[in-house]
């Protein structure tokens, strides 16, 4: 089922006219003319759509938590600061079909009663910002934005704000700080943004993909959306597939497709590249735990794993992982897990905001220890040290970046400890260019 990417290959879909011809902005008309804000929220609640930014929190519930005090403006902020290594779905969506996001923003803002909404795009994607701004101009000219939309008396101003290019500004409170013009440090919670967010007013922060789904939900009804998918993982999800596969790219899948099918069928990734074997998978962006191939395809109980929030996290962190933001990275047997873990750790060291001590110091420490192991200068107790540091960071930080930095390291050691030990025991062999530890039992 294609919901977001149905028309994405239509030539000229980035322009208003083509988008309108393909049934665009009908959801706005339906929502504003016939439904009213509460009905829209109700419909989104019924759909059971979960936040696509990584945490997977039900979007309808998030909307219903929004405080509505009298005389205080409410804001909707779209989080387009997608910077997780391995995730590039929002970028793809925004550059190809910007009006889908604009339409979603209008519906969502209307539902929440926001008269000013923001799209916070990461600064590196300047050309996407121009595309969005052009799309907003077109929508404004057609009367879907600005004052008195469709004669309903509802005003909406949509502002595209480029970020400074910090990963941490994808964390919702850091994003709000950044949007306010301050240093992008995550805030202490509570108060949550639903009570005190942007400019201390109630705010909802949603991912691009989550907001983009609303137009389909309004057109087809929340129940129709909930019928797609499996269990509490309703609807479709964009997966950014990369790594050692035959067909990397962005795929829209019904949640609940089996992992085997997603990885190996020609409709999706097309299998691991020819002549190679599956070694490990990062299923949802760099921050989720890495799992070896056999645990990705089957759960610890021997059941088939499905691409859904529940199935991927089956087995907890011991044998499972998370769907996260859908950054699907596949490693074949030529990938060195130690090097990869070091690379991720380096990323988190660079992107930690430096506010709370466990994350600030811990990410740097882990990176340095991993660097040493990768370059053949580690010792055996370094492995336990890494596990210990990751445990000390996890859960003790202000925002989830600490957890995100700790999980990949902890899981890599959990599943690939022998590879780390090989790096320490055989430093000369391990530091040879392209040298990779081979152990057939983990290959699928």
């Amino acid at each position, binding site marked *: 089922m294609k919901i977001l990417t149905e028309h994405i290959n239509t030539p000229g879909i980035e322009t208003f006219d083509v988008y309108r011809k393909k049934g665009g902005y009908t959801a706005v008309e339906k929502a504003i003319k016939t439904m009213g804000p509460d009905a829209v929220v109700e419909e989104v609640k019924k759909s059971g759509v979960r936040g696509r930014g990584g945490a997977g929190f039900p979007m309808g519930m998030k909307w219903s938590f929004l405080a509505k005090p009298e005389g205080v403006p409410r804001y909707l902020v779209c989080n387009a600061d997608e910077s997780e290594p391995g995730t590039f779905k929002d970028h793809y969506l925004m550059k190809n079909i910007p009006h889908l996001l604009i339409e979603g923003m209008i519906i969502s803002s209307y539902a929440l009663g926001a008269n000013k909404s923001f799209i916070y795009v990461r600064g590196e994607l300047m050309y996407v910002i121009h595309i969005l701004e052009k799309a907003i101009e077109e929508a404004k000219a057609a009367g879907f934005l600005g004052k008195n939309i469709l004669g309903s008396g509802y005003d909406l101003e949509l502002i595209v704000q480029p970020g400074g290019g910090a990963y941490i500004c994808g964390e919702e409170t850091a994003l709000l700080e950044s949007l306010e013009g301050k240093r992008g440090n995550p805030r*202490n919670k509570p108060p949550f943004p639903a009570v005190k967010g942007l400019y201390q007013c109630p705010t909802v922060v949603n991912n691009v993909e989550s907001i983009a789904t609303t137009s389909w939900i309004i057109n087809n009804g929340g129940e129709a959306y909930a019928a797609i998918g499996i269990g509490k993982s309703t609807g479709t999800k964009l997966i950014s597939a990369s790594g050692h596969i035959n067909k990397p790219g962005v795929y829209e899948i019904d949640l609940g497709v089996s992992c085997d099918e997603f990885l190996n069928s020609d409709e999706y990734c097309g299998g691991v590249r020819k002549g190679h074997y599956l070694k490990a998978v990062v299923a949802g962006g760099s921050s989720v735990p890495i799992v070896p191939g056999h645990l990705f395809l089957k759960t610890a109980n021997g059941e088939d794993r499905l691409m859904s929030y529940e199935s991927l996290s089956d087995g907890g962190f011991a044998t499972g992982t998370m769907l996260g933001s859908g950054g699907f990275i596949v490693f074949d047997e030529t990938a060195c897990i130690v090097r990869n873990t070091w690379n991720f750790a380096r990323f988190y060291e660079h992107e930690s*905001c430096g506010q*709370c001590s466990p994350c600030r*110091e811990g990410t740097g*420490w882990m990176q340095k220890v991993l660097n040493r192991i990768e370059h053949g200068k580690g010792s055996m107790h370094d492995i336990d040290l890494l596990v210990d540091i990751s445990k000390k960071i996890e859960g003790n930080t202000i925002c989830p970046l600490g957890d995100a930095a700790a999980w990949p390291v902890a899981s890599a050691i959990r599943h690939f400890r022998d590879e780390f030990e090989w790096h320490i025991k055989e430093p000369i062999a391990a530091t040879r260019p392209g040298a990779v530890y081979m152990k057939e039992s983990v290959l699928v």
Partner: protein
Amino acid sequence: MENTAPQLFKVTIDGVEVEVPPGTTILQAARKIGPEVAPPAMCYYEPLKGSGGKCRACLVKVSAGSAKDPRPMPKLVASCITPIQDGMVVENYTNPQVVDARKSVVEFLLINHPLDCPICDQAGECHLQDFSYEHGVGTTRYEEDRRTFEKEDIGPYIQLHMTRCILCYRCVYTADQITEKRVHGVMNRGDHAEISTYIGQAIDNDFSGNVIDVCPVGALTDKTYRFKNRVWFSKPVDAHCDCEKCSGKVQLWYRGDEVIRVTARKNEWGEVKEFICNTCRFERKQTSEWTIEGPTKVSRASVISANKYGKNLVTKPDFALKLAESQYKKIDDDRPYLHEMSEIQQSEDYKALMAKDEKYFGHK
């Protein structure tokens, strides 16, 4: 009759019950009970709005959220920013998870700290020293290079030694809330973040000196005082003056008859009571300019109270003297405080000690 008294919330911290008004944080409630249960705080500073939550030194376990909803909180929470609920049960020193987390916070704070206490002006009144001494472990597992920075003069009176900084953000809040036109803040991210001023800008306003007082470590130091003294050789005295800019209530630090430093008065948690201006802090260093109120009360546990007020600087520390001192401190606090060896030798305690183990004090 209607009850007009404000409703108080009952909180239990480490088994001690306390009643506090709603909106109080766990840390404040614990401080109300006393230092035995109060969590340490490296970044939280009561006079500064918005501070806290960063250092994670004050993490506590909430084992029951409230009377209505007695579920425990899943993670450790920062007590300085978490408001209490009625019937909340908090575990601080009694919870091994908390003690362990605190140990790791000490470790994290120290891995990039230079540990140059022997040459640091802050030594003796350093919060990080106290914190690591009380909650940390004696060894380190860190083998890598520590991050270092060049020393930087920010303004005519203040030197920034960024290498020592633990990024508590207190000085940033101070600069933001007490002084006008903040020119100093945090640059960069992660463990390479640094406190600095805007390029080419010096801190230049009347209350900038307060950043020295709020700094928990020796990162921001007073250039008029640098390397002049160890804090335990000086004697703090409360004094005031008529100052048109600030309250004029200060602490003078004497070494002999000389005022070597002026600071704001601090409460028992090391927090400044009233911020003072730069004129008082840096320029009024004559006793004649001040009205002396009397010696500052210093906690017995503090290294400052262990000083000899400059008298015994050259005397070799005598082991027996030290021991006798510590013994009578333990036994009874009301007894007169003896400094001179001759006095001590005449004391009952000393004689008793001598009688107890003559062999040990072999010099007799």
